[in-house]
C-alpha cells in the first residue's frame, strides 16, 4: 500500500506541556483510527496534519505535498477535508448554503458543477430532504452530518475527522460508520474517536496516543492481541487486576496480569487499548 | 442593601417550593459567582485596576502642592468622577453576563432549572454590589486621607461621598435592565454611546434648570474655588435618596421583566418609584432665599461672618472653616514684607479671605479687588501656586498701595512686585513658572493674584528672571536702597534694570509706557 501521509518527529508545545512529542507516523489509504484518553494530543495531531497549526519541530507530507511552504500548504488544503471537534456553523444558512459556502472556500468556482457536487454530498450524508432548512432548525445529528458534508465536499484525498460520532444516537452512529467507511474507499481517512467499537468496525489501522506520544501503531487485531492471555473471569473482585468490573453474568471480568490457572477470556479491542494505555503510564511512572 | 430585601420578601411571597432562606442563599451564591465572573471581563478588571491605581496615584502625588491643603467640601464631590470609568465597564459587562445564556443558546436548558429567571436577574443585580462596596472603600480611603492632612479645612458630606458607589451600582443595574429589554450583545455599547451623548446634550441644554440637571446621576459642579460648606446649596441628601430609589426601581424593572410579577415585587417597585420621585422633588427646588442672602452676605460683606486674628502688625480675617489658615498667610506675607524697603516694610496689612458665592458652586465670576489701603484678598485654596499668587497680591499692595491700584500696574513696577513675591522663595524660577498662567519663564504672560492679575511683558520677565538668578542678599540691598524710584510708575524698565544691576532688555519694547497695550 502506498503511504499517503507521513510525519516524522512532530513536536508541539503549549506553554510547558508537550501536546505532541516526537510523533512519527505513516498513513495509507483507508480509515485509520486514532485512540487516546482526553488530553493525549489527538486533536493537536489532527490540527497539525490539517495544517491548522504548524508544528514546532518535525516534518510531514500529505499526498506528496510539503505543508511547510506556503504553496505546499495550499496544495494540501486543496486536497483536505476537515471535520473539527466543535464544528461551527452560520446558523442562518441553510444546509445547502453552508456546504456550498465551504465548497467555494475550497476554490470550486464553477457554479453548476459545484451545486451538483453539493447536492451529491448532501445526498450521500442523507440530508437531501432538509437541505433547504436553516442550520439553526436542524437537530444535533443533522448538524454533525452537515459538518461531515462540508468536510467531504470537493472529494478530498485526505479526510481528517475529529470525534465525528460524539453525541449521536446508535442509529445515527451506524449511518455515520457507513459514510466514513464509504469515504475510506480510495481515500486516506484519519478518525479520532473515543469509541473502540468504531475502530474495531471501521479501521484497517489503529494508532494509540497518550501524553503526546504514539503508544501503539498497527492493525485492530494487533491491538486486541495486546490483551491476549490478560483477560480473565473470577467470582470475586481480583485485587491484582488493573481493571475489573462485575458483568451481567454476576462474575467479574478482570484485565491485567492474571494469576496462575485463571479462567481466561477472549480479549476485545478495548482490553488491548486499556492495557496499552496502562503500560504506557506505568512506563512514564517508572 | 435594599435589593437583598427584595429577594427575601419576593421569595417568601412566592410559595413553598423551598424554604425561603435556602432560596435566598442560592441567589446569593449565584451573585457571588457572577461577581467573580465579572472580574474576568477585561474592561471590568482593567478599569477597576485603573480606578484604584489612579486614585492611589492622586493620593500619593499631592497634585501641584494644593493636595496638602484639601478643602473637604470639595474633596467629597471630587470622589464622584473616578467611579464613572468603573461604572461604564460594569454596565457593559454585567449586560454581557446577563445575556450570556441567551447568546449561547443555553436559555432553553436553563429554563427548567429550579432557579427562576427572575431570581437569576436578582443575582446579576447583586453581583454589582461588591464593586459598589469596593468603590465605597476607595472613596472612604480617599476622603479619610484628605481629612487627616494637617492642612485640611472644611466639612465633607456623607451623601456626597455616597454618590460614587451609588453610581456604580446604578450603572450595573442599568446593564441588567438593558439585558432584559434588549437581549443582545451589541445593545449595551450602543446604549452607552447614546446615553453618553444624551447626558452631554442634557448637560448643555439644562444648564439653567436646577431640577432637571440634578436628575443626572452625578452632578459635579466645579467653579472658581471652594465655597464655605454652608453656602454650597447642593441637595446632596435628596440626591442620594433619589439615586437609591432609582437603583431599586431599575432593579425592580429588570426583575419584573424576567417574570416575577408578584404582588410583593409590584409593591416594592411602587415604593421605589415613590422614593425616586420624592428624591427628585426634594432636590428640584433651586437655591432658597435664605441661602441666596447668606451667599450675598459672604460675598459682599464677608467681615460680618468672618473672625479675625492678629499676627504681628497685621490682621487676618477668615471664614470660620479657614481660621486655621491665618498663620500660613501671616508667614507668607511677612516673607514678602521683609524684602520691601521704605515704609512698605512696616505697612499694616489687613488680609481678608474672599469668595464670590452669589453664583453658586459653579460660579466663575471674578472678585473685585479691594480699594482700602493695605487691604489684601486671600482665596479659599492654599498650597503650591496659590501661595505664590497670594505673595504676588501682597507684593502688589506693598508697591502700589492698594489692591485695585496693584491690579492696574503695567509699568516697570511689575519687576519689583514679582521680585518681592518670589525673592524669598527657595526655588524662585520654578515659582515664577507657577505664578504665570501659561507656565512659562519667558515672553509676556499674565501672573495671577487671588483676585486680579499682573501683566508681565517679555522685557519685564527678562529682568525678573535675571534678578531671580542673582544672589538674593545683593538684590535685597539694592531694592531697599532704591525703593522710592523702584515703586514710582514713571521709572522706565531700563532704569530699573540699571538700578538693580542687571542687563536691560535689548528689544527696546519696554520703556515704561506699556500701559496702552
Amino acid at each position, binding site marked *: 500500500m502506498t503511504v499517503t501521509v507521513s510525519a516524522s518527529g512532530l513536536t508541539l508545545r503549549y506553554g510547558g506541556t508537550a501536546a505532541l512529542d516526537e510523533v512519527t507516523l505513516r498513513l495509507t489509504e483507508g480509515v485509520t483510527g486514532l485512540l487516546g484518553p482526553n488530553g493525549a494530543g489527538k486533536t493537536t495531531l489532527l490540527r497539525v496534519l490539517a495544517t491548522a497549526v504548524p508544528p514546532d519541530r518535525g516534518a510531514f507530507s500529505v499526498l506528496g505535498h510539503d505543508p511547510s511552504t506556503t504553496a505546499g500548504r495550499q496544495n494540501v488544503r*486543496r486536497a483536505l477535508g476537515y471535520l473539527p471537534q466543535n464544528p*461551527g456553523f*452560520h446558523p442562518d444558512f441553510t444546509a445547502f448554503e453552508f456546504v456550498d459556502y465551504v465548497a467555494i472556500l475550497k476554490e470550486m468556482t464553477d457554479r453548476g458543477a459545484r451545486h451538483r457536487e453539493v447536492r451529491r454530498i448532501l445526498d450521500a450524508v442523507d440530508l437531501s430532504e432538509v437541505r433547504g432548512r436553516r442550520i439553526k432548525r436542524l437537530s444535533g445529528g443533522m448538524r454533525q452530518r452537515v459538518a461531515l458534508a462540508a468536510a467531504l465536499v470537493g472529494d478530498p484525498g485526505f479526510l481528517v475527522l475529529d470525534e465525528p460520532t460524539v453525541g449521536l444516537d446508535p442509529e445515527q452512529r451506524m449511518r455515520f460508520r457507513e459514510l466514513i467507511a464509504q469515504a475510506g474507499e480510495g481515500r486516506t481517512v484519519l478518525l479520532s474517536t473515543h469509541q473502540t467499537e468504531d475502530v474495531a468496525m471501521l479501521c484497517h489501522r489503529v494508532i494509540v496516543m497518550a501524553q503526546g506520544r504514539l503508544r501503539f501503531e498497527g492493525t485492530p487485531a494487533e491491538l486486541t492481541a495486546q490483551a491476549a492471555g490478560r483477560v480473565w473471569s473470577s467470582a470475586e473482585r481480583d485485587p491484582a487486576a488493573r481493571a475489573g468490573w462485575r458483568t451481567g453474568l454476576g462474575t467479574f471480568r478482570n484485565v491485567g496480569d492474571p494469576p496462575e490457572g485463571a479462567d481466561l477470556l477472549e480479549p476485545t479491542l478495548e482490553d488491548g487499548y486499556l492495557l496499552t494505555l496502562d503500560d504506557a503510564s506505568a512506563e512514564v511512572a517508572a | 442593601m435594599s435589593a437583598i430585601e427584595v429577594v427575601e420578601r419576593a421569595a417568601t411571597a412566592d410559595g413553598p417550593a423551598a424554604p425561603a432562606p435556602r432560596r435566598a442563599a442560592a441567589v446569593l451564591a449565584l451573585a457571588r459567582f457572577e461577581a467573580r465572573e465579572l472580574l474576568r471581563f477585561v474592561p471590568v478588571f482593567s478599569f477597576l485596576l485603573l480606578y484604584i491605581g489612579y486614585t492611589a496615584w492622586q493620593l500619593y502625588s499631592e497634585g501641584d502642592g494644593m493636595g496638602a491643603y484639601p478643602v473637604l467640601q470639595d474633596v467629597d464631590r471630587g470622589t464622584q468622577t473616578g467611579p*464613572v470609568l468603573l461604572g461604564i465597564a460594569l454596565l457593559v459587562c454585567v449586560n454581557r453576563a446577563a445575556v450570556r445564556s441567551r447568546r449561547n443558546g443555553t436559555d432553553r436548558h436553563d429554563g427548567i432549572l429550579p432557579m427562576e429567571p427572575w431570581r437569576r436577574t436578582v443575582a446579576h443585580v447583586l453581583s454589582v454590589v461588591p464593586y459598589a462596596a469596593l468603590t465605597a472603600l476607595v472613596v472612604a480611603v480617599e476622603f479619610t486621607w484628605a481629612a487627616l492632612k494637617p492642612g485640611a479645612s472644611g466639612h465633607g458630606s456623607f451623601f456626597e461621598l455616597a454618590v460614587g458607589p451609588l453610581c456604580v451600582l446604578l450603572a450595573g443595574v442599568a446593564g441588567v435592565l438593558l439585558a432584559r429589554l434588549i437581549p443582545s450583545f451589541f445593545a449595551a455599547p450602543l446604549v452607552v*454611546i447614546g446615553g453618553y451623548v444624551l447626558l452631554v446634550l442634557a448637560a448643555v441644554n439644562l444648564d439653567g434648570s436646577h431640577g432637571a440637571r440634578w436628575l443626572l446621576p452625578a452632578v459635579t459642579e466645579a467653579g472658581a474655588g471652594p465655597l464655605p460648606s454652608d453656602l454650597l446649596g447642593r441637595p446632596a441628601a435628596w440626591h442620594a435618596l433619589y439615586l437609591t430609589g432609582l437603583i431599586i426601581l431599575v432593579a425592580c424593572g429588570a426583575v419584573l421583566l424576567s417574570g416575577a410579577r408578584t404582588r410583593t415585587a409590584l409593591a416594592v417597585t411602587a415604593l421605589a418609584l415613590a422614593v425616586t420621585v420624592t428624591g427628585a422633588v426634594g432636590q428640584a427646588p433651586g437655591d432658597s432665599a435664605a441661602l441666596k442672602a447668606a451667599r450675598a452676605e459672604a460675598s459682599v460683606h464677608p467681615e460680618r461672618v468672618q473672625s479675625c486674628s492678629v499676627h504681628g502688625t497685621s490682621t487676618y480675617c477668615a471664614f470660620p472653616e479657614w481660621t486655621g489658615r491665618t498663620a500660613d498667610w501671616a508667614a507668607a506675607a511677612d516673607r514678602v514684607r521683609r524684602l520691601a524697603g521704605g515704609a512698605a516694610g512696616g505697612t499694616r496689612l489687613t488680609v481678608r479671605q474672599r469668595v464670590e458665592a452669589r453664583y453658586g458652586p459653579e460660579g466663575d465670576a471674578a472678585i473685585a479687588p479691594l480699594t482700602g489701603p493695605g487691604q489684601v484678598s486671600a482665596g479659599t485654596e492654599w498650597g503650591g501656586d496659590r501661595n505664590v499668587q497670594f505673595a504676588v497680591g501682597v507684593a502688589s499692595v506693598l508697591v502700589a498701595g492698594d489692591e485695585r491700584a496693584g491690579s492696574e500696574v503695567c509699568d516697570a513696577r511689575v519687576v519689583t512686585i514679582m521680585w518681592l513675591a518670589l525673592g524669598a522663595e527657595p526655588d524662585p524660577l520654578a515659582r515664577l513658572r507657577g505664578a504665570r498662567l501659561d507656565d512659562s519663564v519667558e515672553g509676556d504672560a499674565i501672573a495671577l493674584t487671588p483676585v486680579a492679575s499682573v501683566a508681565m511683558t517679555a522685557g519685564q520677565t527678562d529682568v525678573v528672571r535675571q534678578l531671580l538668578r542673582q544672589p538674593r542678599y545683593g538684590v535685597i540691598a539694592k531694592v531697599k536702597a532704591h525703593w522710592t524710584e523702584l515703586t514710582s510708575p514713571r521709572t522706565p524698565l531700563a532704569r530699573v534694570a540699571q538700578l538693580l544691576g542687571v542687563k536691560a532688555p535689548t528689544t527696546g519694547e519696554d520703556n515704561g509706557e506699556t500701559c496702552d497695550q
Partner: protein
Amino acid sequence: MRPVTSERRPKPYAVIRALLRPLWRTLPRPALAAAGGLGLLLAGLPRLLSGAPDPWLCLNLLRAAGLCLALGLAFLFDDPARHTTAPVPVRRPLRGALRLALAVPVAALCWTAALLLVPGQARPPVGAVTLEAAATAALALAGASAAVRCTDGTRPGAAVAAGLTAVAVTVPTLLLPQRWALLVAVGDQRWADAHGRWAGLLVVAVAVVALCAPEPLRRGSVLRPRPRGTAPTTA
C-alpha cells in the same frame, strides 16, 4: 472519480465572485444595521432640536456617530464557522479583505449620510472628522482582528465592542494628558496636532489589522484562560 479536480486552480477573481454572496450573508448585519441606525439618529439630532445648531455639539454628535459605526464594525470578523473553515485553500486574509470590502462601503455610505444630516452651517471640517471616524473604525477592526488572531473565540465582537466603548468614553476625555488630547474643538490651536495623532492612530490600527489578518498560527492563551473543552490541546 474526482469530478472537480479539473478546476482545482481557479482564477482568483472567480473565487472572489463566488464568495461575495455567501460572505455578504455571513456578515453580522444586525449589529451593523443597529450601529448605523443609531449613528444616523445621533447625527440627525441637531435637526430635531430647536434653535440654531451648535457647532461644538454637532462635532461631538458626529464623533459619537462615528463611534457607533466603529462599534458595528467590531463585529465584522465574528465567524461562528471559523473552526470549520480554518484549513481551506482560500486564505483568511482574502476572506477578511472581502468582508472589509463588503462592509466598508456600506459604513462609508452611512458616514456620508451622517455628515449630510448635520446642518451645513454647523458642520465641522469634513476631512478632519472623517479622519477621526476612520481611525476609530480602524481601531475597532484592529481590536477584532487581534482578538481573532490571539484567541480561540469565534465571536470576539462583543468583547471588542465592550472594550472599545469603555476606552472611548473614558480615555480621550479623562485619562489622556492635555498635550496628547484627541478630542479638541474646532478652532482650538491643538486641532492640527490632534489630527496628526489621529492619523498616527489610523496608520497603527490599519497595520494591526493587516498583521493580524492571516490565520492565527498558534492560538495561545494570551488574553484569558481558554474555556475548558475548546482548548486545542485536549484530544
